């Protein structure tokens, strides 16, 4: 019996870009630059970061939608990058992905029933005659009427489409789902419906999620463990309550304070960060956050801070914590 669903070790993903007139100079976007974490059964791991932090790349690389640059990813003890194409195809149904944009993630020319059922058929996971029933059942589970089974995606609103995408993943009875900003494109009243659906499905099926989001309030609501990413590295990892009540890294603090609170009577101390996120082609030396950090010193420019445990599983990568 394996103890972890997902085990990521020293994962790096660099994307080559060509520069110079004839593309002779090769440079790399260091999207993910050494990330380690573990997701245990039933755990919902929230990966938070701003655009360019590499959080989506982590999610997609774990599913081997890209080849890695370095490091290992183990899914239930199996090295995802060590298996051949045939074996990978067999593992696929167990680890699913829910996309950010529910409009482009459904084939416009395929009825939703077929979209949900086809993988069952392709993998031989159900008898042909049963597939329609399984699809109906899954639709109902995801909060959609089974009468919708023969409709096309364009007949649905964004929230309903996201339910269809979730149903497509759930039909395969996965153990692990990567949710890549699944509610970012939805309205507030619909967001809440989808988040509740994620929560219900997780509790009913004992699923594990990697929930990628830029919205800390949603992550707090849904996740049991949270990792904060900045420029390709994890800067802080802790249990939900610990992270939100006792943030240690200056970036986490700034991020938390920047989230607007829907209550005009609360006037909180806000840490406004200077400047912009640096480019991930030429990240700053030492601690990557030092260019925006209010507490940066000489040491931060020279030494890369390691992600270390400061007690009770609270990990942080900063010299001064």
């Amino acid at each position, binding site marked *: 019996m394996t103890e972890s669903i997902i085990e990521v070790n020293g994962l790096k993903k660099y994307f080559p870009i060509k520069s110079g007139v004839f593309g002779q100079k090769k440079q790399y976007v260091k999207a993910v630059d050494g990330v380690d974490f573990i997701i245990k059964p039933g755990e919902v791991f929230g990966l938070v970061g701003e655009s360019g932090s590499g959080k989506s790349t982590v999610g997609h690389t774990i599913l081997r939608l890209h080849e890695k640059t370095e490091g290992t990813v183990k899914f239930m003890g199996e090295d995802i990058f060590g298996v051949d194409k045939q074996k990978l195809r067999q593992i696929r149904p167990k680890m699913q992905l829910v996309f950010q944009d529910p409009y482009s993630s459904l084939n416009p020319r395929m009825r939703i029933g077929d979209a949900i059922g086809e993988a069952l058929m392709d993998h031989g*996971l159900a008898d042909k005659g049963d597939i329609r029933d399984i699809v109906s059942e*899954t639709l109902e589970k995801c909060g959609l009427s089974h009468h919708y089974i023969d409709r096309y995606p364009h007949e649905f609103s964004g929230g309903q489409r996201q339910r269809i995408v979730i149903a497509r993943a*759930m039909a395969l009875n996965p153990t692990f789902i990567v949710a890549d900003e699944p509610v970012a494109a939805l309205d507030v009243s619909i967001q809440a419906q989808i988040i509740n659906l994620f929560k219900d499905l997780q509790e009913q099926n004992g699923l594990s999620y990697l929930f990628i989001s830029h919205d800390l309030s949603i992550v707090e609501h849904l996740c049991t463990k949270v990792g904060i990413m900045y420029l390709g590295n994890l800067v802080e990892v802790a249990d939900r309550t610990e992270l939100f009540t006792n943030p240690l890294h200056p970036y986490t603090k700034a991020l938390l304070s920047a989230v607007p609170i829907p209550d005009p009577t609360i006037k909180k101390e806000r840490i406004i960060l200077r400047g912009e996120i640096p480019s991930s082609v030429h990240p700053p030396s030492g601690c990557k956050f030092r260019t925006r950090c209010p507490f940066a010193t000489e040491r931060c420019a020279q030494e890369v801070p390691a992600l270390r445990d400061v007690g009770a599983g609270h990990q942080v990568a900063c010299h001064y914590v």
Partner: protein
Amino acid sequence: MNSATVKHANHGQSTKRPSLWKDTWKKIRKKKLAMGSLYFLVFIFLFCFIGPFLSPYAGQSVNSAIINQPPSSLHWMGTDKFGRDVLTRLMLAGRISLTVGLASMVISIILGSALGAISGYYRGLPDTIIMRLADVLMSIPGLPLLLLMGALLSELKVEPEYRIYLVMLMLSFVGWPGLARLVRGEILTFREQAFMKATEVLGLKDRRKIFSHLLPNTVPLLIVVATLNVAGAILSESALSFLGLGVVPPAASWGNMIDSANSLIDFQQRPWLWVPPGFAIFLTVISINLLGDGLRDVLDPKMKQ
């Protein structure tokens, strides 16, 4: 989720999946232009394939007694310079022209979409090979190539009956590269979409990815190209036959019937020789294009019912 329990819990709940054909038929019936074209095409087919059996005349029997007669109650469209009944020949010619058009369309669509899909989906080496081949074929101007091949056929003294099939092959051989390129371009854009990433995550087989996801999205393009192709093939066959390089007499095709317009006296004084085949080509080509237009709209799932 346990599929066995699901099956029982859900029994009798699901309805039958509507068939694509029925659906399409229901929608296209509301399109007047497309339906008109469809009726006309059905008529043309019956006319060409059944008609000759009802005609008292044989298409190739020469009768010097009745040459170049204008339309009359005996010969509704008159007779030609060998005394053959023009109406009967028009029907027989239609058989050939329609077969050539449809068959060369089918061949070039199959070739073009399969090769285009393979080269767009796999990229790399297959892409390079297929596309360079297409480049070579496209860089040779089509009509001279067909002329050359036609002349070659004449030189080899191919039997008139077999010649037709060779003409079809020639036409589709020239027709596929353009289509393959279009399909490849479409596939390249679609393969980058999120729903294709989804098929990867679902672990679907390559065959399903290509045939259930990528190719259906090129259907609107395929239909437009297919209709243009049928029309184009009928026209090129006519052109070739008109030049004496395609279907050669005594076998009739709409193209070699118009050939009579080549002679000044026929053109000026015997319009019954070349007007009927001209109209047949014109109306058939237009109907095919209109039907294709209608089909493309109907097959778009976003169309309002």
